[in-house]
C-alpha cells in the first residue's frame, strides 16, 4: 500500500514537473488565440477569409520550411517582381542600344543595324509631317551611304553575291525613302519650300553618290521626274 502511494506520488510529481517545463508562453498563446479567433470570424465572410487563411497557411508553410532548412519564397508576388524587373531591364537595354545604333549611324554589317532601322521607324512615327520629310531625306542618304560603304569594303576583292543582294536591297530602300518623302511632301501641312528642298537634296545626293554607287537608271529617272516639278516651282 505504501509502495502504491509512493508510486502515485512519483507519477504526480513527474506530471507536475512536465507541465511546469512544457507549458506554452502566455504571450504566444494570447497571440495565437487572437489570430485563430479572428480567422474563425472572417471565415463566415467566405472568400476573403479563405484567402487570408491561405496566406496565413503560406506563412506557416514558410515557417515549416525554415525549420526544415529550406528557403521558400512566396511564389507569385516574387515571380511577378522578377518578371517586371527583367522586362524593364530588357526594354531599357533595347531602347538604349537602339538609340546608340541610330545616333552613331552604325553600318549595315553591325549587329545593332536592325535596331537602327527600328529606331528610324519610331522617329518617323513620332514626327510631324514636315519633320518626316526631312527624316526621309536623311534616311535615304543613309541607305546610299550604307550601300557605298559595302561596295568600298570590296574594293580589293569581288563583291560576294550576299553583299550584292544587300546593296540592291539598300538601293531599293533608298528609293522607298525617297518615294515616301515625296508622298509626304503632298501633305497640306508641308510647305512647298520643304518639298523643293527635299527634292534638291535627293538629286544632289544621287549626283554625289553616282561615282561609287551608280543607281539603276529607271530609278533615278523616276525620282528626277517626280522631283522636277517641285524643283522648278519652289514658291508653290
Amino acid at each position, binding site marked *: 500500500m505504501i509502495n502504491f502511494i509512493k508510486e502515485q506520488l512519483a507519477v504526480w510529481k*513527474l506530471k507536475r*514537473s512536465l507541465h511546469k517545463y512544457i507549458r*506554452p508562453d502566455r504571450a*504566444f498563446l494570447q497571440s495565437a488565440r487572437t*489570430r*485563430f*479567433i479572428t480567422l*474563425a470570424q472572417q471565415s463566415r465572410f467566405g472568400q476573403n477569409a479563405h484567402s487570408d487563411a491561405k496566406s496565413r497557411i503560406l506563412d506557416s508553410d514558410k515557417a515549416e520550411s525554415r525549420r526544415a532548412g529550406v528557403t521558400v519564397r512566396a511564389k507569385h508576388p516574387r515571380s511577378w517582381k522578377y518578371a517586371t524587373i527583367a522586362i524593364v531591364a530588357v526594354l531599357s537595354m533595347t531602347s538604349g542600344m537602339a538609340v546608340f545604333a541610330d545616333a552613331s549611324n552604325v553600318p549595315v554589317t553591325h549587329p545593332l543595324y536592325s535596331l537602327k532601322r527600328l529606331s528610324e521607324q519610331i522617329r518617323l512615327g513620332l514626327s510631324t509631317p514636315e519633320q518626316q520629310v526631312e527624316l526621309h531625306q536623311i534616311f535615304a542618304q543613309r541607305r546610299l551611304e550604307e550601300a557605298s560603304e559595302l561596295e568600298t569594303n570590296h574594293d580589293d576583292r569581288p563583291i560576294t553575291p550576299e553583299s550584292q543582294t544587300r546593296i540592291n536591297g539598300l538601293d531599293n530602300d533608298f528609293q522607298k525613302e525617297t518615294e515616301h518623302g515625296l508622298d509626304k511632301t503632298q501633305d497640306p501641312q508641308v510647305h512647298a519650300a520643304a518639298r523643293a528642298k527635299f527634292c534638291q537634296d535627293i538629286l544632289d545626293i544621287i549626283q554625289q553618290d553616282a561615282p561609287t554607287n551608280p543607281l539603276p537608271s529607271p530609278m533615278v529617272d523616276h525620282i528626277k521626274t517626280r522631283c522636277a516639278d517641285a524643283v522648278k516651282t519652289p514658291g508653290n
Partner: protein
Amino acid sequence: MATKDQFNTQAEALQKGDSRSAERIFDHFSGPIYAFFMARIRHKETAQDLTQEVFLKVIKSIEQFDRKSGDFTAWIWQIARNSAIDYFRHKKPSYLADLPDEGTNISEERVKSDESAKVREIMDIVESFSPEEQELFQQHFVADISYTELARITGKTESALRVAIHRLRKKLIPYLND
C-alpha cells in the same frame, strides 16, 4: 460506451464562423497540443510554429469536418499528429544537434535546476520506448489528455488504454524514484 464529443457541436458552430466556439476549441486544445509537440520535438519555437499550424489547418479544413465521419477531438489530434510526422519527414537532419543541450529550450532559465534535469532525463528515457509508448507518454503524461479523449483519438477502448498506461507507468517508476 463512448460519450458524445462536446466539441462536435463547437466545430459545427465554428464552420459558421462562431467566435465563441473558436475560443472554446482553442482554450481546450492549444495547451495539450503545444505540450505534445514540445515533448516530441523539444524546441520551443518549433512547437509554437506547429501549434499555430494546427489551428490554421483547422480553419482551412473546418468545412470538411463531418461528425458522422468521427469526433472533432480525434480529427484535431490527427492534424497534430500529421503535422509532427510532416515535421520529422522534412526537418533538417542537424537541426536538433544545433541545440547545445537537448531540452534546454524547455525553460532556459531553469535549465540548471535538478527538476528540469530530471524532466530531461525522463524524456531521454522515454525516447528508448516503442513509438506507441512514446506517443502515449506524450499524450497522457505531458499533454494530460484524459482516458476518454485518448479513446477518441486513438480509437482504442478506455480499459485498453488504462492497461497500456499502467504498463508505461510501471516502466517509468524505477527512474522516478532516483
